[in-house]
């Protein structure tokens, strides 16, 4: 039987290639993302190993906060300890290290590196010590408060040469420096495309952090003892109450490598999840192709059965064939994926995140993952068609190939609707408080339901969609309409991938539209100023408070208030003390920092109880539902631990609704006035004095902000738009990922059409014989494709809107999020489906015109 399978497989090279195409695409995306992730990880691994090459020990504070997304914020270390460290036996040199916010302003007055949407911008120390992380490639090291050097990439991008004056914005404001050199990080021009402004240690501490402090101390030993021993000696030399720890060079290298991996893993996990979705959709295409080919081979299989092959033997031939395709397709797909990973790197580079190239990382695990997933998915997809092929009665050898039928329609409709309803219930409870898996099951139920329903609705919907086409395109249109409806199972299986992609896009879009309009309402009501200054610094840096104060002094400004964020650790009086010893990191919470004296009347934080002016140094407001959840009331005392380790005994003095406060906790900026880790404003709200023109005042503010090169000035309308538009970034990412699925869906349509053309070549020959022109043949194939694609798009939109509605309804306890059907987006989706249908038909339509009439109508 195996030999027979091999022979049959070889005899069908064309079909083999077609089926493999779906496998290849699905696995290519998967392997592409794996290789991409491994390559980046390897790149950074090698980079940091290189950078920390000379570091034998690393001293830093034990006090830190874990931030979201795997980051952390650590307390500063006094520079005075340098001499202590240097005096330890075995230490040859020690130097401070800082990585803080600093933004280089370009020669055109615009900051280098895109605000918010690019790699971070840093200020740091360039040290003469060999242990320093930077090496000067041109000029010399900076000395004193007026000199700096830049990393090679930033200098090149900003067209700065040694001797130029460079403006930099950091926590202490905006200053000009003379550029005296250019530096490389390890052996590359800049890590990950970040910009670096480098100063000598005293300047860096004062300008970037707090005079007398650094983030950490880098130590180089004389190699007389092991790094572990050196570390122990340094630890012993540092007093316990300093709350410092010493790491070996290997430890800090591993930690930094781990951190970057953490950050990247969010991104690559996202990619990989969507690649698996793409592979799943690919599985559907594979399933479809196997079903079609199995039907086309029914006679042949029946003949095998008639001459004595058992059911299992017939099924096995198909399974062996599918395994071969899975293996070959996955192998090719893995190769194509490697090329794809290069494309991803190029894309990343185009957005500014330059990834230094250090060779491809093709790991065994990436290969095994891709290969196993590809082969398994192919075999699974072939399972049902193979079983069905085995069940073909031997008598079928004598009959003509039967059209497929949708089976018992009523049963199909009842089962389909029931599964969908169950899915809907899962969706609703998933949105309430059931675990996330229930939500997943809900989505799965919705999709399974519509797939079961598919063959029942495919025929009527395809016929309806085809009415205008049949009217407009004459006999070719009539035939296209009939062809789309003639095999309802095939049509619905072909349209299914389109349906899945479109449903997801529509659901996300509908959800986003509703959230957007909700945000617009909320912010429209909350913000009563005229101008907003915003900065998207990704929780790193922002608008120095001094800028906010400068704006307040401007002519025509009636009121100004700044709002920022910082992280703190909170200890809950109602929970037992956390089981953490000193030094272990704890989860931080975001606190919104405000100026209580100026915020009232300008920005409504949604205070439900209490008076913001009562905040003072030790007051805190809490989002009402968070307080309820924790059982806190007015007067509850919370221990607030700042990043620098200072503990404040704070008291709850009021509640906010939480809708406009961006964070669950609100404190006065006074609480953080004396910290060495300074706070910034993220938003500055401005009200223009009566009698002053808004645009004049805006021009005056722009003079200050452009001088420091930070922030974006927005009118009230623009500000509201911008808040609402934030949801678009997430949406864009989701769209991009789903585009993968759409590509596979289109390939699925192409394959199905090719198989249909192959199957109908006699019919096409007959039509050509009785006078159908080539262009009419093309028209027929094209419109069949469009109808199939539209069938997927239209039912996808309907399903997506239903899911979006369910989700919005479930999200919205108080009934104030209005559900919005995204009309424009929906129309665009349908239009795109139309165009893609036309594109998918190009090659199959051409193949159809190549059908040889005489061969096609030959009766044998």
């Amino acid at each position, binding site marked *: 039987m195996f030999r027979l399978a091999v022979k049959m497989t070889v005899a069908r090279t064309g079909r083999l290639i077609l089926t493999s195409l779906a496998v290849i695409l699905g696995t290519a995306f998967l392997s592409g993302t794996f290789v991409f992730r491994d390559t980046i990880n390897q790149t950074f691994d090698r980079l940091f190993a290189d950078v920390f090459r000379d570091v034998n020990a690393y001293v830093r504070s034990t006090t830190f906060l874990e931030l979201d997304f795997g980051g952390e914020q650590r307390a500063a270390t006094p520079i005075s300890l340098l001499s202590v460290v240097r005096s330890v036996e075995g230490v040859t040199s020690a130097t401070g290290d800082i990585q803080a916010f600093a933004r280089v302003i370009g020669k055109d007055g615009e900051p280098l590196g895109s605000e918010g949407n690019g790699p971070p911008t840093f200020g740091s120390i360039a040290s003469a010590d060999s242990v320093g992380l930077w090496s000067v490639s041109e000029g010399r090291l900076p000395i004193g408060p007026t000199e700096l050097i830049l990393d090679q990439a930033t200098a090149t991008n900003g067209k700065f040469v040694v001797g130029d004056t460079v403006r930099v914005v950091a926590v202490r404001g905006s200053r000009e420096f003379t550029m005296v050199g250019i530096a490389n990080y390890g052996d590359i021009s800049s890590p990950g495309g970040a910009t670096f402004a480098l100063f000598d240690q005293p300047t860096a501490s004062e300008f970037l952090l707090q005079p007398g402090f650094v983030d950490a101390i880098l130590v180089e030993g004389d190699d007389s003892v092991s790094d572990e021993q050196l570390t122990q000696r340094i630890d012993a030399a540092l007093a316990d109450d300093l709350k410092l720890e010493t790491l070996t060079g290997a430890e800090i290298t591993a930690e930094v490598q781990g951190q970057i991996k953490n950050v990247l893993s969010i991104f690559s996990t996202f990619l990989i999840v969507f690649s698996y979705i793409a592979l799943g959709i690919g599985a559907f295409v594979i399933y479809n192709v196997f079903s079609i080919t199995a039907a086309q081979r029914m006679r042949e299989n029946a003949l095998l059965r008639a001459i004595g092959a058992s059911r299992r033997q017939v099924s096995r031939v198909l399974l062996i064939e599918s395994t071969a395709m899975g293996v070959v397709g996955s192998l090719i797909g893995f190769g194509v994926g490697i090329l794809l990973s290069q494309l991803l790197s190029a894309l990343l580079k185009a957005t500014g995140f330059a990834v230094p190239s250090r060779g491809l990382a093709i790991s065994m695990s990436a290969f095994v993952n891709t290969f196993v997933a590809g082969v398994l998915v192919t075999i699974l997809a072939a399972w049902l068609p193979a079983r069905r092929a085995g069940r073909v009665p031997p008598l079928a050898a004598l009959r003509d190939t039967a059209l497929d039928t949708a089976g018992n329609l009523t049963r199909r409709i009842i089962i389909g609707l029931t599964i969908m309803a169950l899915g809907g219930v899962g969706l609703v409870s998933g949105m309430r408080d059931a675990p996330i898996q229930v939500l997943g099951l809900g989505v799965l139920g919705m999709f399974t339901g519509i797939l079961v329903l598919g063959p029942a609705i495919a025929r009527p919907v395809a016929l309806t969609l085809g009415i205008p086409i049949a009217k407009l395109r004459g*006999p070719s249109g*009539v035939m296209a309409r*009939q062809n789309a409806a003639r095999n309802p199972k095939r049509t619905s299986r072909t349209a299914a991938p389109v349906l899945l992609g479109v449903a997801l896009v529509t659901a996300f879009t509908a959800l986003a539209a509703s959230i957007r309009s909700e945000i617009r309402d909320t912010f429209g009501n909350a913000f009563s100023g005229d101008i907003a200054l915003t900065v998207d610094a990704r929780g790193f840096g922002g608008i120095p408070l001094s800028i906010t104060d400068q704006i307040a002094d401007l002519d025509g400004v009636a009121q100004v208030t700044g709002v920022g964020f910082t992280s703190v650790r909170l200890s809950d009086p109602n929970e037992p003390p956390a089981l953490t010893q000193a030094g272990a990191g704890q989860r931080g919470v975001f606190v919104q920092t405000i100026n209580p004296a100026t915020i009232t009347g300008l920005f409504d934080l949604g205070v439900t109880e209490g008076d913001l002016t009562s905040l003072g140094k030790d007051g805190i407001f809490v989002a009402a539902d968070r307080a309820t959840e924790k059982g806190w009331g007015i007067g509850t005392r919370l221990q607030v631990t700042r990043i620098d380790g200072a503990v404040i005994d704070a008291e709850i003095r009021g509640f906010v609704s939480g809708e406009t406060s961006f964070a669950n906790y609100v404190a006065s900026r006074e609480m953080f006035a004396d910290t060495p880790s300074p706070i910034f404003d993220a938003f500055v709200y401005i009200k223009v004095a009566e009698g002053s023109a808004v645009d004049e005042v805006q021009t005056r503010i722009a003079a200050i902000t452009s001088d420091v090169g930070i922030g974006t000035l927005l009118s009230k309308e623009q500000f509201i738009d911008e808040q609402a538009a934030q949801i678009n970034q997430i949406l864009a990412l989701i769209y991009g990922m789903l585009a993968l699925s759409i590509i596979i869906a289109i390939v699925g349509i192409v394959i199905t059409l090719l198989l249909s053309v192959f199957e109908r070549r006699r019919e096409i020959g*007959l*039509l050509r014989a*009785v*006078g159908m022109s080539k262009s009419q043949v093309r028209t027929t194939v094209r419109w069949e494709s469009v109808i199939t694609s539209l069938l997927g798009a239209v039912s996808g939109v309907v399903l997506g809107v239903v899911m979006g509605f369910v989700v919005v309804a479930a999200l919205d306890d108080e009934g104030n999020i209005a559900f919005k059907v995204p009309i424009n987006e929906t129309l665009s989706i349908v239009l795109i489906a139309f165009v893609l249908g036309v594109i998918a038909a190009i090659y199959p339509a051409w193949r159809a015109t190549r059908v040889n009439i005489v061969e096609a*109508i030959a*009766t044998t």
Partner: protein
Amino acid sequence: MSIFPPTAAETTTAGTIAAHAVSASKIYVTGDSEVHALDGVDVSFEKGKFTAIMGPSGSGKSTLMHCVAGLDSLTTGSVFISDIDLSLLNDKQLTELRREKVGFIFQAFNLIPTLSAEENILLPLSLGRRKGDAVWIDRVIDTISLRDRLNHRPSELSGGQQQRVAIARALASQPAIIFADEPTGNLDSKTGSEVLTFMRQAVTDLGQTIVMVTHDAVAASYADRIVFLADGKIAGEMFAPTAQKVLDYLKHLGE
């Protein structure tokens, strides 16, 4: 409407010849071997006549029909329909020629399964976006007596009914000539004779021209004239045939 205005030649041969082939040769090359499927065939088909083409299997009957009907091209020689030289036409013109001047009846798979009987009958007309002659079409439908089945799909019709629909389709556009390749090959003898009777009627009563390929002596006896092919060459012809005469002739041809 027609892109084929009557030519001078057509006016001279009008009323006599519907189609003719001159030194028609067709050579198939497969690997190193050449097959002379047609080897210098000269033949003409008279208007208003029912002609049968007979010959042993592989003698080139289908090839001749395909080439004369404009479905395939000759290696050398020429073919005319209503005195239009087919070798001068491009694919688009050939398509329109088949649509307007030629009708086809094949052995099997004659109808488009997704179209109703009526849509199948009108197919060549609607492909050319033409209405056709309503009175004529009505008459054709009456002749094949399938009026009550017009809205049925081919799968709902018997084999004989399907062939009758195919004949109606071939007749609907009043083509210059109709080609039939073993139209009764898949039918039992009773249904087969029914179909042949309809074809005979189409010629006698409706004045159509039919060329039919067959290897069945009884089928051939419905024709006005039989052309015999052997090894790609014309081997003889017979007028006013009967089944017995044909069988005798074939026996003689085999010797």
